[in-house]
């Protein structure tokens, strides 16, 4: 799997699954799946440190989250030891429940971090910016300019800093930064003027945009309002049909308006990504896993996805389907080798 859109689908599905369970066993399986997938990429690049670094990061995250939660949270029946109550903020019993609650939070944060880490690992900046819809063409041009000029800005900053150091400016106070910042700012803005003149000379933005701005903005506002209303109705325990309906209409409006407006934007892309058959297979499997997860969750067929240490601490129950679906992040693995 190589296509950025397929990886985008992978990220959305993985994030949705991570954020919709608090069962530590499922979260652990998710974390292991992500580590396996990530270490596969890095092995190809011959840098074996990735697994070790991320294992260390995840472990630290789980440990820190457990400790912080245990120090500040004193709820639970299983008391391990007690900090004197008169100690401000942290005084009180340290409980097993709060440790486990913190550990679950750490597992979620660690898994989310890993998912985004892999996403950043497999796609280059060009592919990520390519995911920006065509109607945001001016924005993506701005991003491209910033990314293109970033290395030269950095290089210039380094040169000016070295020149200042040679002149005896040690850069120890904020005011010492002025001789560095001003030349950097002025030369960069002069470059921007040259760039804008060459863009104008090449006819950039000489024609009015073909995208009907008012229609797009109104539709986006309308769909944002619908999605927010659906969420609030869901919170107030209205029938799930109301929320789902509003989410669907909102999502559909966004999809239609993006498709409609994208078609009206005429831009030339010189390097197209190729969509392979294995991208289709992967996306199909990902969507299937996601739909099954949603159906099981909404139909209350996967009660083990929700786990809480309160009011009574218990060992997290697991279901085979839960374990299998927690392996979803690993789906792209068989499609990577070719």
């Amino acid at each position, binding site marked *: 799997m190589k296509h950025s859109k397929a990886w985008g689908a992978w990220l959305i599905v993985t*994030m949705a699954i991570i954020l*919709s369970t*608090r069962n530590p066993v499922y979260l652990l399986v998710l974390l292991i799946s992500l580590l396996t997938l990530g270490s596969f990429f890095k092995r190809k690049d011959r840098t074996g440190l990735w697994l070790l670094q991320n294992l260390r990061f995840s472990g630290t995250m789980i440990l820190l989250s457990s400790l*912080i939660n245990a120090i*500040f*949270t*004193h*709820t639970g029946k299983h008391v391990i030891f007690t900090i004197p109550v008169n100690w401000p*903020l942290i005084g009180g019993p340290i409980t097993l429940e709060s440790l486990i609650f913190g550990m679950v*939070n750490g597992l979620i944060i660690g898994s989310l*971090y890993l998912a*985004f*880490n892999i996403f*950043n690992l497999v796609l280059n*900046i060009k592919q*990520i*910016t390519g995911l920006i819809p065509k109607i945001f063409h*001016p*924005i993506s*041009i*701005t*991003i491209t*300019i*910033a990314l293109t000029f*970033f290395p030269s*800005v950095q290089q210039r*900053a380094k040169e000016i800093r070295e020149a200042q150091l040679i002149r005896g400016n040690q*850069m120890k*106070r*904020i005011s010492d930064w*002025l001789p560095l910042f*001003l030349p*950097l*700012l*002025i030369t*960069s*803005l002069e*470059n*921007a*003027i040259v*760039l*804008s003149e060459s*863009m*104008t000379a090449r006819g950039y*933005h000489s024609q009015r945009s073909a*995208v009907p*701005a008012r229609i*797009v*903005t109104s539709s986006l*506002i309308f*769909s*944002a309002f619908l999605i*927010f209303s659906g*969420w609030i109705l869901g*919170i*107030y*325990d209205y029938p799930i049909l109301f929320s789902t309906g509003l989410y669907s209409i909102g999502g559909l409006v*966004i999809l239609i308006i993006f498709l409609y407006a994208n078609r009206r934007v005429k831009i030339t892309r010189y390097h197209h990504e190729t969509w392979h058959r294995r991208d289709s297979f992967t996306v199909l499997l990902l969507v299937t896993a996601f739909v099954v997860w949603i159906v099981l969750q909404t139909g209350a067929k996967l009660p083990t996805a*929700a786990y*809480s240490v309160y009011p009574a601490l218990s060992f997290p129950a697991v279901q085979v389907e839960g374990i299998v679906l927690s392996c979803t992040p690993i789906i792209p693995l068989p499609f990577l080798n070719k």
Partner: protein
Amino acid sequence: MKFKVIRSLLIDLFVLLLGCLSLLTPFIFQQARYPRFTQSSFPVMVSVIIMLCITIVLFESQSALLDGKMIALLGMLIAINAGLRFLESALPGPAGFTPIFFLIILSGYLFSSRVGFLMGAMTMLISALITGGVGPWLPGQMITAGWLGQSAALLKPIIAKCGWKEKPMEIVILTAFSAVWGILYGLIMNLWFWPFLSNSPEMSWSQTISVWENVKRYLAYYIATSLFWDLSRSVGNILIFSTLTKTVAKILTRFYHRFSFQYTQTVNR
């Protein structure tokens, strides 16, 4: 022209209202205090709604003010600001000390609220792309930094009305503004995950207590986990703004005039 201004204002207000409502849901909506709400949907839905808000402002801004000249100016300013993040290590500051607020606030103050929003939101996006820091926290960072730049534009009419333009009071106001935002940025950024993450009776969001009690708990959580970090950012902003504002504002204004030229047909037939 007047219609355009009112329309832009209404869109900005809608985005601000929707963004604030979604972030403050646990405080505002009583029924929102169900455990299952806390556990799963909150961070996802807040991120989705905030992303929609960002999309609306980005689209509106790009169609209203981004021509070739502004694109080049913004792109370059964002590149400089993202570069400043890398120079943080050379700065003599602890914890949350960051120089990136400087150009965001000045852009909003000197150019316009929309440019300020774009500068803030896109600085966060570019730095995330460069550092590999794309994550679920990014929409929150983008909209908060966007609001930072956008709100700086509010100072312009106040300073102009009071006759403080290009006087020491202008720098004092901007410095105080940056100091407040140093704290406010952290206060807003914690909101999207706070009800989801913490479960301490003293510091976490509860289903059964009043709004005011929840606000007090949030403040306790903020003081315990983020205040030191944000205070160092505030102090850093005070130092940067009091030292660099006068000179840099002059340069930015001069370049903005150079970028603001319009082609007009002058040939009489």
